[in-house]
C-alpha cells in the first residue's frame, strides 16, 4: 500500500483529484439528501403508495387460498416430473467447492438464499491479498458482475441491481502482485422460490 502521498505512479490518480472527486460526489449527495428531508408532498406520497400498493396490500382470502392450492399443485407436478425425468440427468455439483489445503472458499452466498445481499469469501493466505470476483448466470453463462482488484474479502451488493439474479455461479480468484490468479474458489447459489 502506498503511504507516500507525494509519490504518484502513472496508473494512479493524484491525491488532490481523489479528494476533489470525493467532495463533488459528497456535495451532490448532501444537497440531494438535504432537499429530501423536507416533508413529502401529497403527490409524492401518492407516487409511493401507488407503486407499492400491490406489494403491501394482501389479496382477499379466497384468492389467496386459490393461489396456494395452485402453487401446491404445481409443486407436486414438478416433483413428479423431476422424479421421472431427472434420473439420468447429470447431478449438480454441491454448493461450495473445496480446493484442498491451500484453499479459497466462498462463504456467501452459497446454496439457497433469500436474497443476494453480499459476496463473502475466505482465504488461507495471510496479509491483504487482492481478489477478482465474477458472478455468472448459471443457465446462460452471462456475466452478471465482475469486480477486480478488491482488498476486502467481501463485496456488498447493497446498491447493485440483482433483480435478474436467479441461479448464479460465483467465482473468486486470489491474485498475485502481477494480477495473475494464484488460487480460485467457486460456488453456486440460487434464490429461494416464493
Amino acid at each position, binding site marked *: 500500500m502506498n503511504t507516500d502521498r507525494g509519490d*504518484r505512479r502513472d496508473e494512479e490518480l493524484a491525491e488532490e483529484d481523489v479528494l476533489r472527486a470525493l467532495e463533488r460526489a459528497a456535495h451532490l449527495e448532501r444537497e440531494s439528501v438535504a432537499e429530501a428531508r423536507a416533508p413529502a408532498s401529497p403527490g409524492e406520497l401518492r407516487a*409511493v403508495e401507488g407503486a407499492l400498493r400491490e406489494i403491501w396490500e394482501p389479496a382477499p382470502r379466497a384468492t389467496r387460498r386459490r393461489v396456494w392450492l395452485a402453487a401446491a399443485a404445481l409443486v407436486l407436478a414438478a416433483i413428479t416430473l423431476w422424479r421421472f425425468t431427472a434420473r439420468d440427468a447429470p447431478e449438480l455439483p454441491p454448493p461450495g467447492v473445496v480446493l484442498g489445503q491451500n484453499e479459497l472458499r466462498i462463504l456467501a452466498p452459497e446454496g439457497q438464499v433469500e436474497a443476494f445481499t453480499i459476496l463473502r469469501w*475466505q482465504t488461507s493466505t495471510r496479509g491483504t491479498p487482492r481478489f477478482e470476483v465474477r458472478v455468472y448466470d448459471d443457465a446462460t453463462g452471462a456475466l452478471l458482475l465482475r469486480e477486480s482488484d478488491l482488498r476486502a474479502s467481501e463485496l456488498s451488493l447493497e446498491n447493485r441491481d440483482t433483480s435478474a439474479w436467479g441461479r448464479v455461479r460465483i467465482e473468486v480468484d486470489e491474485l498475485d502482485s502481477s494480477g495473475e490468479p494464484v488460487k480460485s474458489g467457486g460456488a453456486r447459489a440460487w434464490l429461494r422460490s416464493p
Partner: protein
Amino acid sequence: MVTGGEVQDHSFRAGTQSGTEDVALARRALAGEPDARRELAGRLACVVRMLSSLNARWGRPLSAHDLEDVTQDVLVALWRGLPAFAGLSSLESWIFRSCHRALLARLRSSRQVTALSDGAALEPPAPDQGPTNDDVYQALERLEPRARCVIELKHFEELTFEEIGSRLSTSPNTVKSWYYQTIADLRRILGPGRRGGGA
C-alpha cells in the same frame, strides 16, 4: 474449515448512527408493521424529488413520462432491496445512490449518450475530466467496510477526525492513518485504468 493461515476479520460494521435507526425502521416495515410502513413511505417519497433533481442537473434527458416510469421502478426496487440495506449510510443516502444508478441505467437503455467506450460512465463528465460520481460510488463499494466507513464519515457526513474517532471508539490518529491509507487505495482504484470492467 480453512487449515493454516489467518482468517481475515472483516466484521467491522460501525455504520452511521442514523443508519442504525434506519435499519430498524426497514426491518419493522418488512415485518409488516403499519406504522413503520407509513413512516417508510414518507421517507421513500424523496425518490420523486431526487430523480427529478438529477434529471434537471443532467439537462433533462428524460421526459416527465419516462421519469414517472423510472420512479416506479426505483420504488419497487428499493422495497425489494430493503433486506440488503445495512445502515452503512443513512436511508436517504442509500436511496440517492439507488436513484443515481437507476437514472444512469435508464439513460444507457434509452441510448441517451452517444459514442460510449466500453465501461465508460454515462453521466456528464466531471468539470475537470476526473472521476465521475458513479466512479466514486463504485470505488467506495470496492473498499473494506472500515475504510469505506471512514471515507463516508469524513467526506459525506463532514465529521472531523476527532468525531470519527469518537464514533468508532478509536483515537483520531488511528482514524487519520486509516483515512490516508484509504486515500492511497482510492488513488489507484480511480486511476486512469478504472474503466476496466464490472457488470
